[in-house]
């Protein structure tokens, strides 16, 4: 595996874990503030018409976090690997 690809997947992992970490931390704070609350995911399955049934919403959350993490890593890899300084040659200053 090339260095770039290795760096890419490491960044994706960090971004994904970071996103999940932010989410979980937020949930933990909310749960601490309301001891009687139950976990978000258990709520998601209960009001079925609103979440379009079948747990689509919970799945979308997971997909959103993964796509965001991997996508950010790919974008970062592309941007940091660009040869010029961010503005295309010949662009107006």
């Amino acid at each position, binding site marked *: 595996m090339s260095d770039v690809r290795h760096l890419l997947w490491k960044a994706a992992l960090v971004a994904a874990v970071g996103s999940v970490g932010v989410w979980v931390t*937020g949930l933990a704070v909310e749960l601490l503030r309301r001891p009687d609350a139950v976990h978000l995911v258990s709520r998601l399955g209960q009001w079925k018409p609103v979440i379009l049934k079948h747990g689509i*919403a919970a799945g979308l959350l997971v997909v959103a976090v993964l796509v965001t993490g991997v*996508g950010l890593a790919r974008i970062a890899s592309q941007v940091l690997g660009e040869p010029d300084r961010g503005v295309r040659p010949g662009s107006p200053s």
Partner: protein
Amino acid sequence: MSASRRFRLDPPLAWVLAIVLVKQLAWWALMPLWQIPDEPAHFAYVQYWAESGHLPRATRERPQNEPSEEAAHTEKWTAFHDVTFHPDVRQPFTDGEDGPGEAELRDGPRLGRLKDGNSSAATYPPLYYALARVPYHLFAGGTIVDQVFAIRLVSVVLVVVTTWAASAMALELGLTAGLAACFALFVGMQPMLSMMGAAVNNDLLVIALCTVASWLLARIGRQGVSVRRVAGLALVVALGVLTKVQMLPFAVLVPAFLTLQMARQRPGVRRSAIALGLYGGVVAAAYLGWNAFQAWRGAALPPLPATPCDFNWYFNAVLWGFQGRTMAHMVNTMFWAAFGWLDTVFADPVYGVLGTLVAVGAAGSWVGYRRGTVPSRPFHVVAWGLGLGYWALLILGGYQLYSHGEKVMLQGRYLLPVWAAIAWVVFTGCLSWVPESRRRLVAVVLATLGCLFNTAAGILILGRFYV
């Protein structure tokens, strides 16, 4: 820039659009029924038009939200209406397989879909609602919840279009594909855009059209004034005028920037006159045509009375059930810094961080413009003008034309049509503070911050309903 380059989906832009799409789908699925500003009123417009075949007719009296009988039953059955405006009330859930009122929703009276259609959205032109009727009819066999969520998908698509247009604008202004992608992500992940992008609301079409128009303004600035380019711009603005009255401030500002461009480029008196005349003619035809149609059918014409409010722009976020005065008004920070900024920095970290970012970016744009370190200096004038001018005209227009001197409800979401311009100031302003060798790193950090803001907004807003 060639057409092939403009419409090519570069890998970083493809990832941006994918991120924004799945993010928006998550908001779409998670945001409960009716919990986004004015969703019942906009749905009532669609439902009345679709069921009766007639556009709702505006009246002189300020209409209350009059949803159909079916929608009113839905509010009762689901108990969602108990949450709106009552931050102390929690989202109702059941412990069983079905949600509250699901059986009643399934077996509810379809005849109750038609009432008088006199919603508070009845004054708006029909363009967005014509789009919304397509999913409404496609899901006509489902429950009202199915139909609302189907129409919300139009908004999801419009957020993606907004993001793409922001990227096109950045490419037009000279950023590389990577930096343009970072900018587009910064625009597309804006938390308030995420929230509104889950709604049945014509705001989203105005936002998308204004962002496309901002890109076209950038193109005219870079490539010069031509009849064809101005005609394209006029068409987009006219479509916005046929969507919502909030497009008018934008439509009024555009000729000023066209004039500015022509003063720089000197295309000749004849071509300048044709360009301005073409723009004014197309936009005026849309506005006057719609109002002539309204007069012909006996509907009330502007100025119409607005919702009287007492300082409600600030507390509206709380009233809508969000936690604290957070996401719905964060863009206000830029404009209310004099008396709101320090307070909100400590009251809400997310609001405060983004507000600080806006302030840092705005200062960077100002300093960078003077030093010549910001990309595409002329567009910074346009972007500042769009941001400040739009807000000023919105207040002036709302106050003078629609309120008859009463206080009007001004919400931060009203600034989303010029969010791409504001974001350009903030994004490139932040970049201008660092040496050129570090700008790409800062762009990545800004894009990442945009994603984190969105996640934090999800926790704060959606947590209000589910936790």
